[in-house]
C-alpha cells in the first residue's frame, strides 16, 4: 500500500484524533457491550439465526401476509408480489397494484429485508412496521389501510381469536402491522454456501467461486455491497460513470445481494433480466470498468453462493407467469 510509505509528520491532524479514538474506543468498548464492532472484520458477515420471535405472532403475521382481505378490493395480499415460496418477490420488472396501476419500482425481495438498514429502493422507510402500514395505505399497492383491514378481519371470529391468542386483545392496527413485521423478521435465509465458507468450511465454495469473491472485492463491488446483507446498509448514487436505468431516484439504498441470482429481474426499474447483465451493467456504470465475460461469470459464480435457505428450501427464482399484468422484460 502506498500509504505505508507516508511520513507520520505529514498526516492530517485528524489522524491523531483517530489514534486517540481507537485507543480510547477500545477501552470504552470493553465497558459497553451495546455496540459490537470489530474493526477490520470481513466485509461480509453470515446471516445470523433469526431472533427469538413469538411463534403465535409469526404465524398470525404469515396468515395476514397472505390474506387478500388486507387489500381494499380483496384481490391482493402482500404475498401477491412477495412470493415467499420462491424468492420473496416476483418475476416482474414492476408489479401492478390496485386497479392495475404499475408500481414505480421493481419489487425488492422480502427475504432478509429485516437486515436492511432502510427499506425500499428509496430507503425512505425505517421499519418493517412502517413499511407494512405504508404498503397497505399506498393507493397503488393495497389501496387500503391497517384500520380498514382490522375492520374486515374483526368479522372473522377465528382471526379475532388468533389475535387474542397472540396479543391478548381484539385486532387493532398496531397488532396487525406488528404481526406482519414479526413474520417478516422471520424471513431470513441463512445457510448459504458463502456463509458456510465464512464459518470456516473452506470446501463450501469452489476455487472458481472464491476467485469470483476476490474479484468482487478487488474490483470495488465490495465498497457498497458489504455487511451481513451484502448491501442494504448505505445509500449510493447510481450511474457514477455511465447511466444505469431510469435516472430517478438519483440516490438509492444499495440493494442486498443475498439470493441475488434468484431474484431477477434487477435494478430499481427491473431493467436487467439476468445476473450476467446486471453485473456487466454495474461494472460499467458504477466502476467505469468494462468487465470481461470471464470476470462477469466469475463474479456471478460467487453471487450464486449467496443463495440461502428458507424453511429448509433453497431460495429459487420466481416463476414468471407472463400475464397481461406484467411488464415484459
Amino acid at each position: 500500500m502506498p500509504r505505508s510509505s507516508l511520513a507520520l509528520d505529514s498526516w492530517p491532524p485528524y489522524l491523531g484524533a483517530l489514534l486517540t479514538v481507537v485507543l480510547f474506543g477500545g477501552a470504552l468498548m470493553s465497558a459497553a457491550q451495546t455496540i459490537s464492532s470489530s474493526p477490520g472484520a470481513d466485509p461480509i458477515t453470515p446471516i445470523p439465526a433469526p431472533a427469538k420471535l413469538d411463534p403465535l405472532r409469526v404465524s398470525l403475521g404469515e396468515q395476514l401476509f397472505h390474506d387478500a382481505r388486507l387489500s381494499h378490493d380483496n384481490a391482493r395480499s402482500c404475498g401477491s408480489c412477495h412470493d415467499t415460496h420462491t424468492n420473496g418477490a416476483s418475476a416482474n420488472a414492476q408489479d401492478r397494484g390496485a386497479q392495475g396501476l404499475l408500481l414505480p419500482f421493481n419489487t425488492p425481495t422480502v427475504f432478509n429485508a429485516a437486515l436492511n438498514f432502510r427499506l425500499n429502493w428509496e430507503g425512505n422507510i425505517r421499519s418493517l412496521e412502517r413499511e407494512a402500514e405504508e404498503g397497505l395505505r399506498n393507493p397503488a399497492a393495497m389501496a387500503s389501510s391497517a384500520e380498514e383491514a382490522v375492520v374486515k378481519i374483526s368479522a372473522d371470529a377465528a382471526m379475532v381469536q388468533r389475535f387474542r391468542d397472540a396479543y391478548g386483545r381484539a385486532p387493532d392496527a398496531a397488532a396487525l402491522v406488528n404481526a406482519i413485521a414479526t413474520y417478516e423478521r422471520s424471513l431470513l435465509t441463512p445457510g448459504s454456501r458463502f456463509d458456510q465458507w465464512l464459518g470456516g468450511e473452506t470446501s463450501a465454495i469452489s476455487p472458481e467461486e472464491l476467485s469470483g469473491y476476490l474479484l468482487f472485492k478487488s474490483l470495488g463491488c465490495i465498497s457498497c455491497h458489504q455487511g451481513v446483507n451484502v448491501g442494504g446498509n448505505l445509500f449510493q448514487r447510481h450511474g457514477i460513470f455511465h447511466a444505469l436505468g431510469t435516472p430517478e431516484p438519483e440516490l438509492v439504498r444499495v440493494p442486498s445481494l443475498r439470493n441475488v441470482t434468484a431474484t431477477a429481474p434487477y435494478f430499481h426499474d427491473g431493467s436487467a433480466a439476468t445476473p450476467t447483465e446486471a453485473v456487466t451493467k454495474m461494472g460499467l456504470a458504477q466502476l467505469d470498468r468494462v468487465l470481461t465475460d470471464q470476470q462477469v461469470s466469475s463474479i456471478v459464480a460467487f453471487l450464486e453462493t449467496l443463495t440461502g435457505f428458507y424453511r429448509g428450501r433453497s431460495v429459487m427464482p420466481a416463476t414468471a407467469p407472463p400475464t397481461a399484468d406484467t411488464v415484459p422484460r
Partner: protein
Amino acid sequence: MRLSLATGGVLLLALLTWLALRGINTNASAYAETQRALDEFALAEASISRDVLQASAGLLGNYDFLGEAEEAMENAVSRIKSRVEAEKLDPKPVDRLAAALGQYQDLIERFKSSNSLLQNSLSYVSQSSTDPAFGALGDQFASSATALAAAVLHLALDSSVETAGSLQQQIIRFEAQAPTGGPDGEAAHALLAHARLLSDLLPEVDQTLRAIVATPGRQPLEESRELLASAQAASEITAQRFRVVLSVVSLVLLVLAFRLGLRLRTRTQKIRRLVDANIIGIVIGEFRGRISDANDAFLQIVGYERNDVTTGMLRWTELTPPEWREGDEQRVAELKVTGVARPYEKEFLKRDGSRVPVLIGGAILDKAQDQGVAFVLDLTERKRAEKALRESEAKFRDYAETASDWFWEIGPDYKFTLLAENAFGSDPAERIGTACWDHALDLETEPEKWRLVWETLDARKPFRDFVYCSVGGNGLPMYVKASGKPVFDGNGEFRGYRGTGSDITERNRAEEEHQRVRQLEADLAHMNRLVMMGELAFSLAHEITQPIASARNNARAALNFLDQQPPDLGEVKEALGCVVGDADRAANIVDRIREHIKKAPPRKERFDLNAAINEVIVLAHSAITENGVSVQTRLAEGLFPVQGDRVQMQQVVLNLILNAVEAMGSVEAGARELVISTEQTKAGGALVAARDSGPGIDPEHLERVFRAFYTTKPSGTGMGLSICRSIIDAHGGRLWAEANEPRGALFQFTLPGVEASSSGGSPNARAA
C-alpha cells in the same frame, strides 16, 4: 366514630405512603437509565467517529456497525426525550440533540456513499497506476500515471487547495499523454475518470469527516446531561426533605402507637376481666357461625362444656332454633354495616334440647375476618317474673272488674291520677285532675269531717272508711266510702295516695230504713207498754191505793196516839215511819209505771236480769193475784249480767206474764200456775222461760202467735208477741214458743252474754 377512625387510618396510611414515595426519589433509577442512554449516545458517537475514520482509511470491513451505532443513538435519544417529557423539563436541549443526530446521520450517509466510491476509486487508482500496461507505454507516461496516483494519495491525506490544484495539474498532464484508443486508452480513460472522481470526492469526504469528528451531538448532549442532572439533584433534595419529614412523622407515630398499644392492652385486660367475670355470657365468633371463644357464663346459659368450644364444634347458628335464624341474619347484616347489633331478644337451644330466652347484642371485633363479639343475658328469670306479674295483673284486673269498689290514685296535690272504670258511676276521665272534694256536697254541712280528712292527708297517714257525699254519674248525690294509704317512691318521696272507694248510697238508705223501722218498733213497743199499763190500770190503782190507804190508817193512828194524854209519841213516831214507808211504796209504784210508759230511745246497759224480772212480777202482782194465779220464780243464782235495754226486757217479761195470766183465766182456779225461770246458757248468755198451765197453743200456731195482729183476745191489739220478738231480735237473742208439759204453753227467750252481744258493736266499743 368507626367511620372516622377508618378514614383517619386510611388518611394516615396515605400520608405515610406519600411521604415514603416522595422520599424514595423514584427518579433515581429512571435517572440512572437516562444516564445510561446519554452514555450510550456518547459511546455510539465515539464508535461512529472511530468507524468512520477507519472506513476512510479503508480499514473498516462494512458499514453494518455504523447502522447499529446509529440505531443505538436514535434509541438513546428517544429514551432521553421520553424522560425529559415525563419530567416536564426543558425540551430544547433534547430537541437540539435529536436535530444534531439527524444532521449527523445525514453526514454519515453522505460519508458512506462518498467513501465507498472513494475507496473504490482509490483502490483502482493505486492498482492501475502500477499497471504494467502503463509502463509499456513509456517512462514518461508511466511516471505521469504514478504522479497522478501520488497526487491522489496526497490529496487523500491533505485536502488543502494547493494539493487539490496539484492533482488537477497531474490530471491535465496525464490526460495530455494518455493514449486515446485501444485497451490502453480504455485503462487510461478509466484511471482518469477515477482520478477526476477522487479530486471531487476527496475534499468532500474530508469535509464530511471533519464534520463527523466534530461530533455535532456533543454540545446538545452535554446540555441534556446537565439538564437531567440538575433535575435529578433537585428531586434528590426534595426526596431528602421528604425522608426527613417521614422519619419525624414515623417517630411521632411510633410514640403514639406505643401509647395506644399500652392503652389498648389495658383495655383488652379490662375486657378480658369482664369476660372472665362471667357476669354476663360473652361469646366471640365468626358471623358464619363458628364460635372461637365463650366464657363460662355463656356455656352455663346454653348448657355446654368448655370442651365443646375448644374443639371448635360449637356453632351459634346451630344453637339457634330455626325460626330465629332469619332474625339473626338480619342482625348480622346490620352488624356488618353499622358495626353494632342492638340488643334483641331471641332463644337458644340448650344442649338438652330445651330453649332458653336470652337478650343478645354484639359488635364487630374484626371486620376482615368477619369476627364479632356478643353478650348474652339469660332472660329465664325475667320471663318468669314477667309471667307472674302478668298473671297477678290479670288477677287484680279481674278483681277490680268484678268488685263494686273501685281503685283510685291521687298525686301529691291530691288530684286524681287514676280511677277505675266503675268509679263514681261516671266517666273516670272527667274526674282525673280534680280532687275528691271538688265534687263533694257536704263540705259546708260537715266542715269538721273534712278538716280531719285534710289533716290526715297532710300528715301522710292512712285513712279508712271515710264517708262523704259526692255527685254520682247520674247527677244525684252519691255516698262514697273511701279508704287509702300514702304512696312513697324509692327515695321516700311522697307520691300521693292510692286506695279504694265504694258507693254506699244504697247501704245508707237501707240503714235509714232500718232506723225508721226501729223507731216504729220502739213506738209500737211504747204503745204496747201503754196498752199493757191500761190493762194494769185497775190493779195498779189498787196497788197504789193500798199504800195510800195504809198511810191514811197509819196517819190516823198517829193522830190517835197524839190525841192520847199524854200523847204516846213513841207510837206516833212509829206510825209516821210507816206513813213514810207507805208513801215511798206508792211513789215507787208510780215511778215504775212512769218509767215503763216513758218514751225513751233504747239504751244499752248492763243490768241484773233477775232483779229486772222481780220488779216486773211486783208490777204485775195485783193482776196475778186478782186472777187467782200462783207465781213461782226459779231464778238462777249468780247469773251473769246482761246487756241491753232494761225497760224493753221487762216489757217482754211483762207481756209473757200477762199473756199467761189471761190464758189461764179459762182454766179452773187452783190449777193456775205460772213459773218464771232464768238460767245461764253454755254460751255465757241467759235463758228466760215462762211456763203456764193454761190451755196451751195449738202446735200449728206456735209461730203464728208471733205475727203482728194475731190475737186470741177480744181486746188485744195482736201486737204484743210480735213486738217482743223484734225486741229480742234487736238484742241478738231469740224468742220462741213450745208446748209445756204436762199442759200449758212455754215461752222462752235467750239473751247473749255481755261478750257475745257486743260482737256486733263498733270497733271503738270493742277497743274500749
